[in-house]
């Protein structure tokens, strides 16, 4: 088991006064079987005029805050201590073949589906950042020969993306469409996650977008992972029969997340779980400064 202290700071300097601001924060780690949140603090400056906490439709905790007084800066500081247990799948080979899985979960009129299959279908179709275009299948198809296990096929897809794509923070923005990423072969963790999800869904497999953190400075001898100084994103694929029903893949680092990945929230794509999503009235520039520090806690 690993224990981490996480500090996630976001600073907006709007340049001019913002008279009204509403924000939806996905900053509170969701409960998962392999994760336990020991302590969580959320500090906001200025103090919000109104706030409310509840779960969203995907089971993530969300904090809504509103600022009704004029302000020029917004500082959001989320601090937490979290335990993460190992949860790698015992073997990738145990999962069903991807094409059999698709057949097994297909809709049959008048027949009640398994609850887990029905739930997985929330993550099977188009979503705002994951448009399913016919260019995706040719890219992904060689990873999916008939009869291959769904987890092995997914790992092949992850490797393909990791090999063919270059990490480049300058190449894309939060709004860059998946097809453009496919064409440029560049992007950041969010783009790779969206692309991989789009490919999986195009093949007919349910896939989720996971938002979270990475250990900033790995133990001596291990390489520092890409994306460690900001919030991170990876992919989870539906794999009935595995311990948790879903298995995570990180295409940015070409590995299966385990105790060095901390899960914050999941949804269909980035739009469901953006750490800070807001609407402001007024203000000039609004590019935030974000800093994430994840340090191991002894004990």
């Amino acid at each position, binding site marked *: 088991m690993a224990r981490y202290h996480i500090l996630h700071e*976001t600073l*907006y300097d709007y340049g001019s006064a913002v*008279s*009204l601001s*509403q*924000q*939806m924060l996905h900053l509170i780690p969701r409960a998962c079987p392999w994760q336990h949140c020991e302590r969580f603090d959320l500090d906001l400056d200025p103090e919000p*005029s*109104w706030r*409310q906490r509840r779960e*969203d*439709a*995907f089971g993530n905790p969300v904090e*809504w805050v*509103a600022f*009704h007084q004029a302000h020029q800066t917004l500082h959001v500081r989320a601090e937490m201590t979290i335990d993460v247990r190992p949860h790698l799948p015992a073997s990738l080979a145990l999962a069903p073949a991807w094409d059999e899985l698709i057949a097994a979960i297909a*809709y*049959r*009129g*008048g*027949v*009640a*589906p398994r*609850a887990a299959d*029905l739930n997985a*279908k*929330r993550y*099977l*179709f*188009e979503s*705002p950042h994951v448009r*399913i275009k*016919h260019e995706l*299948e040719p890219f992904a198809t060689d990873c999916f020969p008939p009869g291959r296990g769904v987890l092995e096929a997914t790992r092949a897809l992850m490797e393909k993306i990791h090999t063919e794509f270059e990490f480049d923070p300058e190449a894309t923005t*939060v709004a860059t469409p998946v097809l453009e990423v496919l064409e440029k072969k560049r992007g950041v963790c*969010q783009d790779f996650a969206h692309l991989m999800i789009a490919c999986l869904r195009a093949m007919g497999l349910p896939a989720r977008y996971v938002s979270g953190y990475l250990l900033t400075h790995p133990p001596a001898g291990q390489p520092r992972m890409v994306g460690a100084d*900001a*919030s991170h994103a990876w992919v989870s694929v539906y794999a009935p029969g595995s311990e948790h029903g879903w298995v995570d893949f990180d295409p940015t680092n070409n590995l299966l997340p385990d105790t060095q990945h901390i899960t914050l929230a999941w949804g*269909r794509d980035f*739009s*469901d779980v*953006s*750490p*800070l*999503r*807001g*609407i*402001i*009235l*007024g*203000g000039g520039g*609004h590019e*935030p400064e*974000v800093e994430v520090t994840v340090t191991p806690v002894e004990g």
Partner: protein
Amino acid sequence: MPRTLLHHYARAVDRYDEILDPSGRVRAHWKPLYAHLNAAPPDSMRQRIEFADRCIEEDGVAYNVYADPKGQERPWALDPLPLVIPAQEWRGVVEAVAQRARLLNAMLADLYNGQTLLAEGLLPPALIYGQHGYLWPCTGAQPPGGVFLHQYAVDLARAPDGQWWAIADRTQAPSGAGYALENRLIVSRVFPDLFRDLRVQHLAAFFRALQEGLEHWAPVDQGERPLIVLLTPGPYNETYFEHAYLARYLGYPLVEGQDLTVRGDTVFLKTLTGLKRVHAILRRQDDSYCDPLELRGDSALGIPGLLVAVRARRVMLSNALGSGLPESGAIMGFLPAIARRLLGEELLMPSVATWWCGEKPARDYVLANLDKLVIKGAYPTQQLEPIFGRELNNAQRDDIVRRITTRPHAYAAQELVNLSQAPVWSRDHGRRLLARSVGLRVYAVATPHGYQVMPGGLTRAAGRPDALVLSMQRGGAAKDTWVLADGPISALSLLTPVLGVADLVRSGKNLSSRVVENLFWFGRYTERLDDTARLLRVALARLIDSGGETTPDLQAMVDLCIRAGVIQPGHDEGDDAWVPIGTRLVDAVYDVEADNSLAYAVRQVLWSAAQIRERLSLDHWHSLNRLQHNLQAAGQRRHELGETLMFLDQVLQVSSSLTGYSMDNMTRDIGWGFLVVGRRIERLAFLASTLGAFLRRYAALQDIRLDWLLELTDSIITYRSRYSRQPELLAVVDLVVFDERNPHSVLFQLQALLRYSRRLATELSEIPLDLLDQEFQTMDGFGLWQFETQPDHACTTLAAHLDDVATAAGELSDVLGMRYFTHVDAVSHQTLAR
């Protein structure tokens, strides 16, 4: 023997005929209308059609067609002949449509809470989770009373055997009920006797029921009366006419997203006197655009935080957010089983046969029978135009087959329906009825006693004999729908009175800031139109008087017009680019592209009027539409000077009738106060700056005749009756600057402006009027005797004062804008942090 009206009417072969029975005889319920048409002399029908067209033009009924290169709005096409439906048959339609509304409401309630339909396999998840219209943030939201669908519409078609079929459900924000109402107002006036004798059922009760339902369920705190608003995407929406029309008819403020704001979990309307809580929103905006915080973030149209208020049940949306789901035609095939499961009932009216390609047997059938089917997107947000299998060539067919095979769940196919046919009046041939396919859109509203169906609806007739699609966008026409009563007509449902003395409203307290701002600009623009027309009229009259020669007096006039920005500075005579003054003046009248031209001023008036459409009476609209009509008619020809002068006279008539309506017929609330202040500011600024320039020039060159100053200020008659002699400087200045009883004098404007502004200030916060008041004192104390002793010096001194007055008027306008309107233009934007 004269030919009958039906001589050219094509007999139905493979379809139902509304007017003729299979043996070719006129059906009983059509006989009175048919007899009436047959007996009517040809001239009288022509007159009636012209009457209907005039109504449409003057009421400004329009249907905006985005793709229409000819402009924003196209007049609504209306065929004067109603579709007649007997009482007996209608009862079946009512029962079936009310059941369908109940069913779709129950289906939505299930899909947003619990999803037993998915859990039991009665609906494929692809048709719900695959739809962008399924709004995840609305999961678990429970609208007041469990009502998702307050308004529901269904498109019906009649099969060859006479049975009505549902072909499309409208659940997002069903449009057309307002057009149905407007059609009724017009057609019942086209056939007034017939309308009464046939005992046609009235529509008013339907709209009362809508109001009743909204008031019943609107979540109010103890003692509150619900504030209900109608939310429109704005004047660029294709059915904006209807939004304004309904808002006016129902008495609800017409608001855009920016007029509303969410504080905490409560929605407010931004009014001049502060934030007013909104309890219910009659929504004509698509739901995905309603809250940029949680739904589409790229939209400036929405109300950030609205979903918070919805989940807290502090506001009711009608229809509920997320209620567009049943518009997916692919769902139709699943409805019978859903009806059994949720209602324990059989569907009373069948849906057109539909195959969802996501199921293999259905897909195989569709691919094997493309010729007989019409292909549609399974998701309304795909915005796929229907594809008719039999119209495809080989390449197109291969393409659609490939698309269906790749993403089968995104496609559905429907059987082609042979629509019934009904007679339309031939406009090209006079006395002749033509057979056209018709479809009927029927409306239902939720009331505490169940769904109530409008007795009537919007009938649409195809534009061409062979048209497969009924669409107002493709040249079809609308018809009124006459549902006959078999008992006495109840004029109106009797409502229990709910208003007490404490609820009486005397001021426009629920006016949004945006509406008030637009009223202010409407006031300014109508006055600007008037000023521009007067200035150009004086200049043109001078030109005609001088026989086309450039006299010094004319040159002075032209210089003032240039200074006022009404005409553009030209080149010297002899230059290649020289344009004769006559041409420049005519251009200043008709050229919409030129800044400050009269045509441009007309456009500004129409634009600002469009923003406050529901606040203006129909009389206002008649004048405005006449203005637009005259300008369009005039704009298409080369222009003689005399003709242009006549056009200016017409413009001034319209402008004075607009003023008359504003002064005489508008309620004197805060909005009206801003309109009047806007008018006074504009007139004061115009008079002061023009008179100042005039006096300065007069002092320097003395080449201007004083009488045009009297013309410009409409003061000739007063002057003549007072002095019976040629205009003299002192007397003219006294009349047009200082005479407090002359409604065109500077001092009159100053006094009126101060009076109306102070009145506004008592209802609102303080309005800084010191500067204006100071200018008034200065002007009031001006010694007119100076014109006897040192006329030139008096002219320049007064000119300087007038410049100050014009500046003060401009500053008041800015202050009002800063204080009351500023937030209207402020744009929200999305911020994202990873």
